[in-house]
């Protein structure tokens, strides 16, 4: 129903350029997550979409119609603000029902929709309280509730779960996804939390300093990061990066750093001699006494099902995830192997992925 298109969108505050020539299409009904470090312009982009911030350059269209100058009221978007922005003099019930009341819905209809939203959000017993008498997490849920009762074309969420505890957050992730599946509305969702991004998104848009670094499905970003920046941003624990060169190891290419040689897929033969950074995800390695990645393990952290080993390889800290059964105490020398196709190669200068 509503595709959101950003065409060379720019935003500057005076001389400060916050967004630069941003191109993005959010297909109708998709759930897009904006991911990026603090200050990269996520909130600004959402506010421009809602019409709360002027668009300095480019064209924004919703549903095929250019909306650059359309009033926020007439854009038919719902937004959850980063700082909740609840109406402090109204009760939770009135807060959630406000948009419905504005839309001139009947009293009974408003009551029913508010009750439903409150039930989903576990807010039923707080309906008659004012925001001041709620905890941070409860306030955040009220802000969610206000958006949920809207039947908007586009939903904008600015870090709506940041103040919730882990359990409630997991519950809300599912609720938001279900809401999305039910309404099928186009959703743009900002978060810092990768798990949220990976679990909820149809597409992830990773931003840096006001531009898009990579856009794709969660698997795309995880399996084929287009740059070292993306590789380091996505995935916990963070990807290991080793700087070295591609060498010829008896006819087949290998990555070499210090005394370490790791076999590479044959395609990298064309890049022999190139200075590269090799990215290895902690979960892609396996304990193997004959493996090329060898070092003294300094810390072993149990994280539940797994154990994380911090290994000193070639003077650098290397993190590896292994099943809990393989736990050994610190000080042991460990060796790891990694499948060649799991290696990510980036140019040492530009940080760009070296495609095969």
């Amino acid at each position, binding site marked *: 129903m509503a595709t959101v298109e950003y065409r060379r969108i720019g935003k500057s505050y005076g001389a400060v350029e916050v967004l630069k020539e941003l191109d993005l299409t959010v297909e109708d009904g998709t759930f897009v997550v904006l991911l990026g470090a603090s200050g990269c312009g996520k909130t600004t982009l959402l*506010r421009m979409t*809602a*019409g*709360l911030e002027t668009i300095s350059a480019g064209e924004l269209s919703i549903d095929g119609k250019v909306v650059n100058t359309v009033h*926020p*009221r007439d*854009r038919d*978007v*719902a*937004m959850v*603000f*980063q*700082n*909740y*922005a*609840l*109406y*402090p*003099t*109204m009760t939770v019930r009135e807060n959630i029902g*406000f*948009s419905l009341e*504005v*839309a001139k819905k009947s009293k009974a209809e408003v009551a029913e929709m508010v009750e439903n939203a409150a039930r989903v959000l576990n807010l039923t017993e707080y309906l008659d309280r*004012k*925001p*001041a*008498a*709620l905890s*941070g997490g409860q*306030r955040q849920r009220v802000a969610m509730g*206000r958006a949920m009762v*809207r039947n908007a074309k586009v939903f904008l969420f600015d870090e709506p779960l940041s*103040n919730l505890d882990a359990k409630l957050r997991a519950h809300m992730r599912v609720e938001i996804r279900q809401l999305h599946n039910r309404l099928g509305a186009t959703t743009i969702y900002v978060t810092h939390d990768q798990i949220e991004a990976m679990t909820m998104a149809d597409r992830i848009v990773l931003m840096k300093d006001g531009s898009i670094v990579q856009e794709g499905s969660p698997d795309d970003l995880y399996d084929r990061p287009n740059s070292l920046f993306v590789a380091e941003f996505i995935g916990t624990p963070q990807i290991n990066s080793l700087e070295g060169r591609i060498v010829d190891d008896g006819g087949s290419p290998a990555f070499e750093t210090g005394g370490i040689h790791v076999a590479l897929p044959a395609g990298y033969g064309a890049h022999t001699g190139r200075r590269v950074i090799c990215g290895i995800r902690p979960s892609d390695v396996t304990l193997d006494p004959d493996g090329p990645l060898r070092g003294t393990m300094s810390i072993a952290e149990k994280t539940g099902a797994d154990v994380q080993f911090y290994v000193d390889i070639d003077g650098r800290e290397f993190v590896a995830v292994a099943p809990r059964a393989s736990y050994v105490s610190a000080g042991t020398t460990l060796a790891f192997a990694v499948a060649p196709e799991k290696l990510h190669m980036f140019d040492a200068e530009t940080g760009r992925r070296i495609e095969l």
Partner: protein
Amino acid sequence: MMVRSKSSRMVRTIVGWAVVALFAFPLYYWMTVAFKEGNEIFNWPPKVWSFTPTIKNFEEVFGISFGFGFGEQREVLPGGGNFRMGPRLWDSIVIAILSTALAITIATLASYALSRMNFRGRHHFVSWVLSTRMMPPVAVAIPIFFIYKDIGLLDTYTGVILIHALMNLPLAVLLMKSFFDDIPGEIDESALVDGASRWLIFRRIVLPMVKGGIAATAVLCFIFSWTEFLFVLTLTQTGLKTVPVVSSTFVTSTGTAWGSMAALGAAAMIPAFIFILLVQKHLVRGLTLGSVKQ
């Protein structure tokens, strides 16, 4: 809060009462004068606690046997006699309340616009509003007199109400603007996205949040109008006069009618006191509490 020792609590209590006494005693003394006979007022040493109270002064000031002759608009007779100040008190009340209401209405609307809407020269506009108050009132009193004379506002309620509201506006606008500025813009924006119009946002969401600010500003405006002297003196003749101006008529060539003046002053405290009491319960802090993430 720290647990304080008994002695330090006692010191605080004593100091507190001393300060209260410092401010309350002159008021009390003024009241005793209002209830004293003429000659008793000048007794030396003054009788502060024990004197024979009488309501003679009040009877004199407000007409026979305490009837507030609101309907009658008799002129003040200098040099004593039957003053009939009831209508004058009524004048004060009407002017203070209506000019406060007018100033608050305009200031609230104007300052919301100044706080929220972006237009060219907004900052200059704010300083211009303030600059209108920098001129000493005497400088405008005479020109206003002639203007009022020409347009027929001289000696009318409307005239005095307008000028009092006008004098209060700059401060009221500035004060109200600071209250609006304290409300995070996201609250308006959130309602805007939810489809509400500016007017609805103002009425339903923002206005209830600045209730305390309105109350505080109203008290200031009321007190200004209640005590204002210069404009009432110059812009009214026989139609109306407020309490500060008629008080001055007790100072006559044959002496000052202290008892009458004190009686009128004491009576004039009551409406102001009631107004502030009514407004005060809205002076609550923290109306924006819980709205945004701190």
